[in-house]
């Protein structure tokens, strides 16, 4: 591949942003095909969604960069650096990192759904960073598509001419050839000086066992090469890159990355703490004076402890978290211990999907078996002595006598919906303690409903319920609003007479009986049958509010094992064992992961 460096005016750096499922990854597929970046026989649907988890869930989790070479109608070859981004709210930090490596964004909108919450949220992120926007209406092949109307919505939103909005079908390839010319025409080339001191922004990273930390770079000024002393400006760490390269989308080494380009360097660094997403790379000699703006770490919404099922895996978990954090800069963690679960880490997540993905990735990528404790939001506790503390672990709630007031986080939410569903969505928000603020007609198809609502009420099921009530057309965006006082208390759960700290939750006092009995009922369902009688109790303020007994283990006096068919016997036993992953022994009883998550689903 050419290394002389493309003239800047023939480079475009752009990402593809949209609401979830509007077709970003599918559009990327078509662009990769069109430019011949990926050979036909290696093509799969959503080829950039390369993680197993992404394929299983059918969503993008990680932003992915890829370099394409494109011969334009002016006869010139262009270097196009594309970044496909995730659409789910829990991963919007991925979008904001990707945006800062780009000058422009393709904004994809589903022709049947129109503009939705993350269309707006991601668009505003891009506008904030002063990016050029290329609007594209996708899925025009669907019978219910209304591309012209959606193009008009876009005109109102971003002020482009509706006729200029591209209308494509990423799935069928219709009008795909119009996309890259629009990118070249409407997105400005990068600025920056190849001869200036090196400044490159680390916008993502991952850990490679052989090459150490791989830092994904957007070079702003200068040139970066292997075997040249480099400096990480915020950690002051000096190192030499083992390799520089580009994403194709797999990593391909090249000689150098120049101003305006996107690629990676293999840092060789084995201690992951020294290399952080958001840091600026420069040369040790004659380096840049000022670092680039970094990233503000996002604020976690939910917190939970993560513990190894096997206590011996604690160190392995620590290393896994460090390495995963490289690839997921929004993950935060600190050590914590639990009487029931031993040594683990308190982690902060951007939402429950994020929590689920982190646990899955730790388990799959680092071969661990883990238990996550009941998720909690972060409470503010005003103590009698005037001190205010933040509590994200129910176990850290001070004694009631020391508490003046507990405050819970409230969110400002905006629900976007077609007008037909206003009634049912109002009802949904108000039954969850939501306070109506206002309603705006964005156009005839779209209404924005705003509420203030406690975070704990929207954490679980709210989004699913919203989708169900609006036949999939409603969408949701939220930001933190304020802390408000509430009559809250801690509910503890005792298994076999022993309190299991990791099962504690903070609840509203007037829900104690209701939640307590729902809790023990749920525990009884999910804790596997035991040899002996095991009581489960829920207690508030030392008083038992509900109890139940775990089922006793089914006797299984053995059946005849026929003529040496040991394989069948083993498979039957394997099936019995299947359900045994993600179980943590507490005293005599094994508690499965579902038990810790049960607190989220106490309503049914």
């Amino acid at each position, binding site marked *: 591949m050419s290394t002389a460096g493309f003239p800047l005016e023939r480079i475009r750096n752009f990402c593809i942003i949209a609401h979830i499922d509007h077709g970003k990854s599918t559009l990327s597929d078509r662009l990769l095909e069109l430019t011949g970046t990926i050979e036909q026989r290696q093509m799969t649907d959503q080829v950039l969604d390369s993680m197993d988890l992404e394929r299983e869930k059918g969503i993008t989790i990680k932003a992915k960069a890829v370099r394409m070479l494109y011969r334009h109608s002016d006869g010139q070859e262009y270097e196009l650096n594309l970044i496909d981004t995730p659409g789910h709210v829990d991963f919007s930090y991925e979008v904001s990192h990707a945006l800062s490596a780009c000058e422009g964004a393709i904004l994809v909108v589903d022709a049947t759904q129109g503009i939705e919450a993350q269309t707006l949220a991601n668009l505003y992120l891009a506008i904030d960073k002063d990016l050029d926007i290329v609007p594209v209406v996708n899925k025009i092949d669907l019978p219910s598509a209304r591309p012209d109307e959606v193009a008009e919505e876009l005109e109102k939103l971003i002020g482009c001419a509706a006729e200029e909005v591209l209308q494509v079908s990423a799935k069928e390839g219709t009008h795909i050839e119009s996309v890259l010319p629009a990118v070249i025409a409407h997105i400005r080339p990068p600025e920056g000086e190849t001869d200036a001191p090196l400044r490159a922004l680390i916008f993502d990273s991952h850990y490679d066992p052989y090459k150490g930390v791989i830092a994904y770079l957007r070079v702003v000024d200068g040139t970066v090469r292997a075997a040249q002393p480099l400096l990480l400006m915020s950690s002051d760490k000096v190192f030499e890159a083992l390799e520089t390269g580009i994403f194709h989308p797999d990593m391909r080494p090249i000689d150098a990355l120049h101003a305006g380009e996107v690629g990676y360097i293999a840092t060789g660094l084995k201690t992951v703490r020294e290399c952080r997403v958001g840091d600026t790379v420069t040369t040790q000699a004659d380096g840049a004076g000022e670092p680039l703006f970094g990233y503000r770490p996002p604020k976690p919404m939910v917190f939970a402890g993560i513990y190894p099922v096997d206590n011996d895996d604690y160190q392995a978990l620590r290393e896994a978290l460090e390495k995963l954090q490289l690839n997921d800069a929004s993950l935060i963690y600190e050590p914590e211990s639990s009487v029931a679960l031993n040594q683990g880490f308190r982690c902060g997540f951007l939402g429950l999907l994020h929590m689920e993905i982190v646990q899955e990735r730790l388990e799959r990528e680092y071969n661990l078996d883990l238990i996550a404790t009941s998720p909690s939001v972060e409470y503010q506790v005003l103590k009698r002595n005037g001190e205010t503390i933040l509590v994200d672990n129910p176990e850290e709630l001070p004694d009631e006598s020391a508490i003046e007031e507990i405050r819970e986080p409230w969110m400002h939410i905006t629900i976007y919906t077609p007008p037909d569903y206003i009634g049912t969505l109002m009802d949904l928000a108000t039954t969850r303690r939501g306070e109506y603020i206002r309603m705006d007609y964005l156009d005839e198809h779209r209404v924005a409903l705003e509420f203030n609502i406690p975070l704990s009420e929207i954490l679980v099921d709210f989004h699913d319920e919203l989708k169900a009530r609006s036949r999939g057309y409603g969408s949701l965006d939220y930001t933190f609003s304020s802390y408000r006082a509430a009559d809250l208390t801690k509910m503890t759960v005792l298994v076999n007479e022993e309190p299991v700290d990791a099962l504690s939750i903070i609840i509203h006092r007037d829900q104690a009986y209701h939640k307590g009995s729902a809790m023990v009922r749920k525990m009884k369902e999910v804790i596997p049958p035991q*040899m002996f009688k095991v009581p489960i109790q829920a207690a508030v303020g030392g008083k038992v509010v509900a109890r139940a007994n775990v089922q006793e283990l089914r006797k299984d006096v053995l059946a005849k094992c026929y003529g040496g068919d040991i394989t069948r*016997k083993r498979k039957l036993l394997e099936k019995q064992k299947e359900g045994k992953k993600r179980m943590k022994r507490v005293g005599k009883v094994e508690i499965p992961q579902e038990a810790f998550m049960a607190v989220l689903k106490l309503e049914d």
Partner: protein
Amino acid sequence: MRSSHRQTAGLYIHIPFCDSKCWYCDFTSFVGREGVFEPYLGALRRELLLRLPAWSQVTFDSLYVGGGTPTVIPASLLADFIGQTLALIPKTHDIEVTVEANPSTLDEAAVRKLLDAGVNRLSIGVQSWHSEELARLGRRHSPQAASVAIAAAHSAGCTNISLDLMLGLPAQTTSTWDETLQRSLALQPEHLSVYTLTLEPDTPLAHEAQTTTLDLPDDERCAELYAMARNSLAQAGYGHYELSNWARRRQDESADARYPGFAARHNLHYWHNERYLGLGVAAFSFDGLTRWGNTCLLDEYLAVLSQNRLPVSEQESLSGREALGETIMLGLRLLDGVYWDELTDRYAIDARALYARQIAGLSAEGLLEADALGMRLMPRALYVANRVLSEFV
């Protein structure tokens, strides 16, 4: 397992024929195929000849002819076949030769022919001494037939008899089960097996269970019946050596022998996860590395062997670690349990360390006893053995 390097193995021969089909049966057995008895025995012989070269370094110390109901084959035909088989295989001088029989198919003359051919052990499917229980299983024989058959076996000179009994039968009560145990013990068999009835899908009994109430004893009741068996058999001097199996000691036997003298040598090969060669329809084999199973289709079996090809339909090989797990899963069925040194010798894996967490957990629950020598089920675990065994697969 001390015997892991021993070059002995078991030979299993499956005879897939019965007079009628019992209502709970999902074993591979066919009714009304008398016409293929001889071709089938011929095919078995061919399979044996195809297999023998690869098994030439082993010595067989047991031959088990099971089914189905081997004794539906006319006695002289079956005896000839067994005699010929024994003549073909490398064997120990005291090879255990067992034939499975149903009470209604045994008479003194038949037993005599079998003994003359080298058979020295009979396993008789009594199941119950209650005519009503037998009827509800669709078993053809009556309790009287069982007494007659056993008496015939004794008078023909058979000195090693095993009886199969079943618990968990429709309408079975503690008193009918007690009667079954007592009447069995009165005959002083050398060996007893007690299995639980399971409703296998697509059997007439399973269909019946869907439409009517079968009055099956529940799990608790089965555990109670099993406890009764443990007590009665222990009192009568039988050693409980495997979850479902009891045996008498031999007179000359030392008191600290690992298993009672009349323990089924053939089945010990299974529980020790040792080699066995299985011949016939739906027979399984294990050569120490690979397991395979033969086709379940009688006509296919005959056709394939008529072309001198092997009738294998499934096969799997296990890694060392998987094989270790399997050896533990099988070995823990033995009340004597498994021994660390034997496992290490055989797999070069420290099983105790590998399963430290499982062992600690099961010990805490009082299901497993582990010490410097090995590990074994605790008495309470006998009722929930799958719970323990599943931790190791």
